[in-house]
Structure formats: C-alpha cells, structure tokens
C-alpha cells in the first residue's frame, strides 16, 4: 500500500515537472524576444531610432493605407458574408473555402498573383493602363495588397457571425413583415456587430503588418509605398536600433488592439447569454 502511495507521489512529481518544463520552455521562448525588443539598447537608442527619416513617412502611410483597407474590406465584406452565410447554393461553400486561401498561402505568393493580375504586363494590367490607371508600385497597390491578404479575416468572422444568428429570430422578423433591407440593417447587423468589430480589428492588425505582398506588388519606396514593416526591413540595413524602434511602434499598436479585443470580447458573450435566455 505504502509502495503504491510512493509511486503515485513520484508519478505526480514527474507529471508536474514534465508539464512545467515543457510549457515553461515555450513560454520563455515566446516572451524573451519581446523582452529583448523592449530592453535592448535602452530608451535613448529607441528615441533616436524613432527620429530616423524613415519613421514618419512610413507611419503615416501605414496608418492611412491600413485604415482605408479595413474600410474597404468591411464595406464589401459585410454584404458578401451575409450572402455567403445565407446561401443554400452549394457552390457558396466552395467559394467560402476559396476566399480563405489568402490566409494560408505565403503573402509573397499573393503579391505575385496581384502582379500577374494587375501589374503593367498582367492579365488585366494592360486594359487598366489603357484606361489610364496603373496601380502597381503606388500607394493604391499598398492598399490592394493589404485588402487581398487581410479580407479573409473579416470574411471568416462575418460569415460565422451571420451563420450563428438564431434562424427563428430571422424567421420572426420576416413574418412580422420586415423587408430584406430592414432584416439586414435592423436585425442581422446589430446582432452580429460584436463579431464584426472583432473581425475588423483582426483585419486591421493583418493589414498593418502586411509585408510580403506589399514588397512584391507595391515595392519599397520611402514616402510612397514604404509601410512600417518595409521600413523595418530597410532600417535593418542601416542600424538595428532604428529597426527595433519601428518594431516597437508596431508592437504597441498590436498590444493596444489585443487589449481592445479582450474588452470587446465581452460583447459577444453578453449577446450569447441574452440569446440563450
């Protein structure tokens, strides 16, 4: 009996050591780079890095283009998601999968695809150029690259949000005489709103961090197409502390976004509880 007790205690110790050891290893690995990012070189070098000539044009461009991208994604993505979520058409399911593709392909591949479609020699590029519009390697291309890689995040959140709406609520709304626009604007949209905002926030984070597709399709021109991630790449060749300072800017945005999402995620929970009652 006592031997059983001992072996049980020992196996419990072993279990504890294994769990703490493995988990702790990953935890350290994930946290240490952030520690270095914040502490290395000290605040002075960070301030000096922020004063670099690359910083402000890149920050302005990043904020401007990413916000425009989020706006475009929400504007087009909301109706598309509403249609996808309600469609009984089987092809809609396939379309949904296709629209998730940009999440899993490398962004550089997305950039090549954009170039082949809308570049000067691209499939539609010549037609666009004849209309007097050549988007590649301009600020417009930055937005296009961001929309391409970040839209799936919003679409997925929105399709799920609309798909999760209680079908009997929608049925009741229609039986009461609600026209399609009223059903959408007064019932579906307010009920899905917390998830839509969450999806838009994730889309914004993705657009702000976009690198590969932007580099391929928009290039890396300071003040014109050089967003913060591209500026970090350029700064790395000059001085690592400048790259560090710019990175901290992006980390600060990302962290603020996470805090906002955590606060906001209580929204869906409240809505769920309301719906359950």
């Amino acid at each position, binding site marked *: 009996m006592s031997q059983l007790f001992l072996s049980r205690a020992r196996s419990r110790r072993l279990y504890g050591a294994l769990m703490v050891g493995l988990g702790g290893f990953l935890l350290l690995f994930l946290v240490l780079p952030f520690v270095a990012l914040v502490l290395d070189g000290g605040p002075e070098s960070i301030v000096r890095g922020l004063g670099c000539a690359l910083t402000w044009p890149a920050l302005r461009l990043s904020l401007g283009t990413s916000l425009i991208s989020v706006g475009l994604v929400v504007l087009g993505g909301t109706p598309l998601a509403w249609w996808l979520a309600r469609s009984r058409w089987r092809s809609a399911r396939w379309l949904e999968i296709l629209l998730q593709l940009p999440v899993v392909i490398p962004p550089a591949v997305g950039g090549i695809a954009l170039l082949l479609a809308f570049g000067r020699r691209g499939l539609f590029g010549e037609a666009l150029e004849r209309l007097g519009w050549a988007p590649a390697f301009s600020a417009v291309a930055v937005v296009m690259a961001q929309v391409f890689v970040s839209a799936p995040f919003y679409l997925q959140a929105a399709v799920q949000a609309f798909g999760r709406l209680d079908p009997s609520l929608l049925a009741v709304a*229609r039986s009461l005489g609600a*026209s399609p626009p009223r059903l959408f604007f007064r019932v579906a949209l307010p009920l899905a709103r917390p998830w839509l905002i969450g999806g838009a926030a994730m889309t914004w984070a993705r657009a702000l961090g976009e690198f590969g597709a932007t580099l391929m399709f928009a290039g890396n021109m300071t003040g014109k197409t050089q967003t913060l991630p591209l500026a970090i790449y350029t700064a790395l060749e000059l001085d690592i502390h400048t790259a560090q300072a710019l990175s901290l800017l992006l980390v600060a945005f990302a962290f603020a976004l996470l805090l906002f999402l955590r606060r906001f995620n209580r929204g869906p929970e409240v809505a769920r509880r309301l719906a359950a009652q």
Partner: protein
Amino acid sequence: MSDDSVPRLSLAVEATFGSFALRASLEIGAEPLAVVGPNGSGKTSLLLAILGLRRLDRGRIQLGDDVLYDAVLAIDRPTEERHLAYLPQDFGLFPHLTAVENVAFALACNSQAANRKRHRGEAMSWLERFGLGSLAERNPAQLSGGERQRVALARAMASAPKALLLDEPTASLDVEARVEVRAFLAESIRSLGLPTILVTHDAMDVEALAGRVAVLEKGQVVACGPLRDIAKDPPTSFAGKLFCSSKFLGMVPTDSPANTAVVRRN
C-alpha cells in the same frame, strides 16, 4: 365573434427535404388546430412551409381570399408579405431591443412612413393592452418566460396578422409558468379570432388551446378531427400515449373557462 368572420387557412402541400417527405392537407377555420406528432414527424417543417421558409414541390396555400402559394399558378409570396404571426418556441424576441422597441419593430415593418415616435406610442398602447405597460423599457433577458410570450404576442398582433402559428408555445417555460401562459393564450386565441395552428408535444396544450387535432407521422397527416374523436380513438401509438398520459383521457373538460368556448364550438 361569429365563425364566418374568421378567414379560413387551407393548405395542401407536398415537399421533400433530403430523404424526408412532407405531405399535408389541412383546413383551419375558427377552431384552433393542434398539430401533434413525435420529434422529426415534420411539425416545425409544416409551420415553416406555411411561412414560406421551405421550398415546396407542389400544392396550394390559401388564407381567406389571398393565395400565398400555388405551384400551378407559380405564386409564392415572400414570408414578409404573408401576414402570418409566427411565435417560435423561445418566442423570438429581438435581444438587442427593449420590449417596446420589439413591438415598434412590427409597426415600422407595416407602415409606409418612418415615424419612430408614433410607432413607439402605438407600441406602448399594444403593451398596455397586454398588461405589460410597466415592462416596456426592459430587455427580453429581464423578462420572465410568461412576460416574454406576452410581449411576443403583442408584437405579433401589432403586425396585423391574418393567421397565428404557434410552435410549442409552452415548451420552454417552467411548469408553474405553463399554467398561467396556457390560460392567457387560450383567452387570447379566442378573442383574436384568427385561424390558429399550434404545434405541440403537450396534451394539456392541446386540450386548453385547440378544438381540432391533426396527427402527423413521418411527414404525413394520418388523422385530423375534433379533439374528442382523436383522443378517444388515437390513430397512432404516439397519439395514444399523448392522450393516455393526459388525465383528461377521452374527453374535453368543460369546467375550465378556457375550454368552454372550444366545447361550444364543437
């Protein structure tokens, strides 16, 4: 209210959903019809078909002089133009709107001009009519099951419906609330004078609320008739168990006021 002032809802529909086939032919007049059957017998599908939320293969649905659906004439009115009041099992109140806003929603749906203030005022008077004036500003989550059902009924009535469809009206309530809600519903159904279909699992609901019963089995209406006949001679084992477990076996009680009207109509 005399019987001829109540429009008739008549339907003969056929539909297939995957491997499930629904085939129903029913007439509903002044006497509320209870549709009973085991889970998966197609009760809710039947309601959704009447609402226009299920694609039908064949048939016709007519409400008074309005043809809601006719496969031959290619008439298929959208749900929002069928003027049917639908109360789902959990009553379907919009959780993001207060009680009065829920009712005002129905009024706004059915008026040409957008006039929030007037709709709100009218919604208040609907709530007061249903004894809910003091609860107007509450969210659905802050209402009891019985109160929620009253708000849902007030909202349904505010949309000026021509028929009433109830899906398991007492299933989501606790036992105590059921008695109260059943009495309230019985009185409402009687005073509204609309053709009423009620889908239920509950023999007490049938006896309190309906005069006629349709028994559904695997998507088919296997029997339809006055409650007394169906209860006395149940056509399926489900109907047998349903009415056997009821203490009113084989007869309609005449002592409760909710039921007197039903009996008189028989």
